[in-house]
């Protein structure tokens, strides 16, 4: 599923520091819940990974060595060693290991450029990580944890094709 323009267009006008602040909170939570997330990267921990959602006007750069996450406009130079481009739904599915990266590549739903070995290492690290975004988001919501988790899982269930979320 592609994010409709009426949802993504407003992001053109949201200040980058604000988007960055929100995504960094989620990024930090994921790292605190999965401290070994980058262990499988080995020497590729020093590489910078860019994620460019094709249906959003922003891009994300992850530097596992610090670890840090930056947000920038698509037109800005990401200065990354490798870049993956796909719809945001597919990028989030890969983050959770809910879909197979090779299958997306065969279907031309994803493009990867730059250091393939580093990107392969990251793909395998994420696939082994057992990240569940609705659970992580719920943990950020304090007393509303259950409500937020259920809402996020509901959204995920609607946007992911049936066969991609059936397995877990």
């Amino acid at each position, binding site marked *: 599923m592609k994010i409709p323009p009426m949802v993504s267009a407003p992001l053109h006008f949201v200040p980058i520091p604000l988007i960055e602040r929100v995504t960094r909170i989620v990024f930090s939570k994921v790292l605190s819940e999965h401290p070994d997330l980058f262990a499988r990267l080995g020497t590729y921990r020093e590489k910078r990974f860019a994620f460019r959602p094709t249906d959003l006007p922003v891009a994300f750069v992850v530097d596992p060595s610090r670890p840090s996450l930056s947000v920038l406009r698509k037109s800005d130079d990401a200065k990354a060693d490798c870049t993956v481009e796909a719809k945001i739904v597919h990028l989030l599915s890969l983050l959770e290991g809910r879909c*197979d990266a090779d299958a997306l590549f*065969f*279907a*031309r739903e994803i493009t990867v*450029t730059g250091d393939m070995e580093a990107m392969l290492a990251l793909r*395998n690290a994420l*696939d*082994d990580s057992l990240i569940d975004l609705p659970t992580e988001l719920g943990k950020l919501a304090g007393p509303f944890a259950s409500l937020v988790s259920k809402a996020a899982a509901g959204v995920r269930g609607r946007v992911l094709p049936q066969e991609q979320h059936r397995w877990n």
Partner: protein
Amino acid sequence: MELICPAGTPAAFREAVDAGADAVYCGFNDETNARNFPGLNFSREELRNSIAYARQKGVQTLVALNTFMRAGSEALWYQRAADAVALGVDALIVADFGLMAHVAETYPEQRLHASVQASASNVEAIRFLVTAFGVKRVVLPRTLTIPDIARIARKIDCEIEVFVFGGLCVMAEGRCSLSSYATGKSPNMNGVCSPATHVRYRQDGGELVSELGDYTINRFPPGEAAGYPTLCKGRFEVGDSHGYAFEDPVSLDIMDHIDALREAGVSALKVEGRQRGKAYVAEVVSTLRRSLTAQGAERQALLSKLRHLSEGQKTTSGAYEKRWR
């Protein structure tokens, strides 16, 4: 027949077990196995935990030590064999005769399988492995027809395992030098076919161009399903023709022939894909498990759902019912 399933990470291992595998095969995170990709495979501790998980559910663990030892560096392969035996794996999958001899002499009680990388494709070769090293099962190359397999099965004293689903290697495995030719690295010696270090993708207009080392492997027009950047599935110019000289970008699927394979004497059905994600492993293993007991149209309906996961989004029965070009 047993269903032998792949795992490249502990998460994928658990998915394979939960989805209905009879046995899961995997490797250590080094050059001792033929899927030596970055971020993939198991540490000693991860393998210990995975074996325990499998054992609780009555599932076996097979460990692939299926690259060929480098002269002077045999200690690495010997150490990994010792690790696997100490952890209690149900079988070692080995290609190198020297390593087979070492395992047979040092751990005579350890069950030994001949890897597809051993390229044992005739009665004499298999009998030698059984007699010399006590091999209990041979994984046959994907170059034989089902009648070939039946003829071999009648004349050997060990079990037969064949690939039924996943990546299709069309070469004499363990002896293919195409990847070495282009990159200097091979699945046989380094555990990598078309290593990621040498792979580049770029967009040229609407076309996806895949490159391996100094070679352009393929150009996929807009909308055409893509494949792996391997020379054997590259598009070549031969004389006046332009196309696939060896094989198309396509995956193997002979699950529709499992009755014939059973009659031919096959004991175990192997799924390729240690490099694939846990979502792939879960979906493929659970579907194949159901298709083993399904019949006719129901089985075909189940299997057709897996096509979108396959290389080039196409499947073939390959050499099992080869019609030569």
